[in-house]
């Protein structure tokens, strides 16, 4: 199909926005460096300044962009697959499953011995949740079985996380669990980047490959099959892609809500509501939104460690309410 006018500038616009925001985020931080010197130190060696930039700010900027992209993309894919604008990875149990894996790592004390145990166990938790959802959902084409299974796995993971919290004898571990669950990008290193990026890239590729099937699925599962779409393969693509992207995102940054829910919602009218076109747009939009949220968190309370998950929820909720109000008045 030929690109309509909004499509032509939407992707460059969102991509440019994400890049600019990433550059801005590189100039902000506790070290109080001048922006020009900070950016130059990334490339030209400038002693301590280069270390701050390359070891602290660069991983943070890369993670905010890639995590935002992963969350936006998975939200768009899940909404397309479930044909429901309210779906996100939390509903599918994958976010909560990953969170449970991380909490288990903190609770069991493994993460204190071996720092990467936390993201690794979170990733594993996401994949276990996905496998459970797949096994429980049965073989039907409809979204109802999958949503029910997702909600069940979500509740189970949430309950087990709460159990770990209430049984935790070490108050520091309990505090760490609570802070971790609020979602943050503080103190992440390039190690985190190298751990998460392959999963997010691979999962993202799976989700983008699902685009064609998602378009056909707009007409219902039966018609999609009559158009040659293999619904079993599509389900696997979506769930495996979501487990990899959201599992990795949760593994690195904890639970960051609303990006996957709000970004596809906001961008849907701009891509003519086509699920396949929404994928890339939501990835770029998610990258921009999460980076903006991270900048906002740093600007509003530079010394208070405002949690990123809190900021996205605070930004996301008014947007969401506006959407609901607009939908109710029928103006959209």
């Amino acid at each position: 199909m030929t690109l309509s006018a909004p499509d032509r500038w939407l992707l460059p616009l969102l991509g440019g926005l994400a890049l600019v925001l990433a550059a801005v985020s590189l100039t902000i931080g506790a070290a109080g460096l001048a922006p020009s010197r900070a950016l130059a130190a990334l490339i030209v060696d400038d002693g301590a300044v280069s270390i701050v930039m390359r070891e602290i700010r660069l991983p943070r900027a890369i993670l905010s962009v890639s995590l935002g992209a992963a969350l936006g993309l998975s939200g768009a894919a899940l909404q397309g697959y479930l044909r429901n604008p309210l779906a996100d990875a939390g509903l599918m149990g994958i976010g909560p499953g990953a969170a449970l894996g991380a909490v288990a790592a903190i609770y069991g004390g493994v993460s204190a011995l071996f720092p990467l145990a936390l993201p690794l166990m979170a990733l594993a938790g996401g994949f276990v949740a996905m496998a459970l959802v797949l096994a429980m959902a049965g073989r039907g084409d409809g979204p109802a079985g999958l949503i029910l299974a997702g909600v069940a796995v979500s509740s189970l993971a949430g309950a087990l996380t709460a159990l770990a919290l209430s049984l935790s004898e070490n108050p520091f571990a309990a505090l760490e669990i609570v802070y971790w669950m609020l979602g943050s990008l503080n103190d992440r290193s390039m190690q985190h980047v190298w751990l998460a990026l392959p999963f997010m890239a691979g999962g993202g590729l799976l989700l983008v490959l699902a685009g064609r099937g998602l378009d056909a699925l707009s007409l219902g599962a039966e018609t999609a099959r009559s158009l040659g779409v293999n619904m079993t393969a599509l389900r696997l693509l979506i769930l495996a892609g979501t487990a990899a992207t959201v599992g990795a995102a949760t593994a690195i940054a904890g639970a960051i809500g609303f990006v996957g829910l709000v970004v596809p919602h906001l961008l849907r009218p701009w891509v003519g509501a086509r699920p396949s076109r929404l994928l890339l747009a939501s990835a770029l939009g998610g990258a921009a939104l999460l980076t903006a949220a991270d900048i906002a968190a740093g600007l509003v309370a530079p010394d208070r460690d405002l949690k990123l998950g809190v900021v996205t929820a605070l930004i996301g909720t008014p947007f969401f309410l506006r959407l609901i109000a607009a939908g109710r008045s029928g103006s959209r």
Partner: protein
Amino acid sequence: MTALETRALCVALDGRPVLDRIDLALQAGEFVGLIGPNGAGKSTLLRALAGLLPTRGGTIVLDGRPLARLPAGARARRIAYVAQAREVAWSLDVEAVVGLGRLPHRAAFAPETRGDRAAIDAALATMALDGLRGHRVDRLSGGELARVLIARALAQDAELLLADEPAAGLDPAHQIALMTVFRRLAGAGRTVLASLHDLNLAARWCDRVIVLAGGRIVATGAPEAVLDARLLASVYGIEAHVDRDPGGLLLVPTGLSARSAAAARSEDRP
């Protein structure tokens, strides 16, 4: 030339037998009406012929080859299917929905070709949807949406079109327009099988009707040869006035047949 054939086709839904040893053959260039009461198995038959249901027994043969062995993508280029449920999940525009019919012809991420464009334009023109091109489907009337979804199937440009109650919800003018579209397709060598509840549409426009009742074919043939008062009484339980004019049969249901009426009365009793 036989386009599609079934031999002793049996289909069960959730373990309940729905179709029982269906033998039928659709010729290329034929517009066939599938008629029968609610629950006769019309939709199940159409879905099975579209390759969307597992069969319990028998075979479906498309152009001499078993349908089950045809890969889904190749099948989609040869069989278009219009579902009875008219659902579109998102607020897509008419052109985008019709364009979905081109998916089986396009490789992943391939841009739209001139052929795709031509097929979409032709389908829109055929269903008189040019004026609605840019309209969003969630703002259309039920009949307009029905026409969009038929245009989607036409854009698929398949040799066999299976349509489940395509005329339901259309006004008389659009019903007749749809019948002429199907006739034209048949005239161009395509094959159309459509389930119809309007007996007059079936009688006056179809080359042939297949009458389904209780999961079996009870009659098949030219409408004039098959549709008579006796058949309508036994299949639908109705009494009908059957007449003819130069355009074909005229069927006016006048009441329930004596047997149905007695059954209805006995259900009224406590």
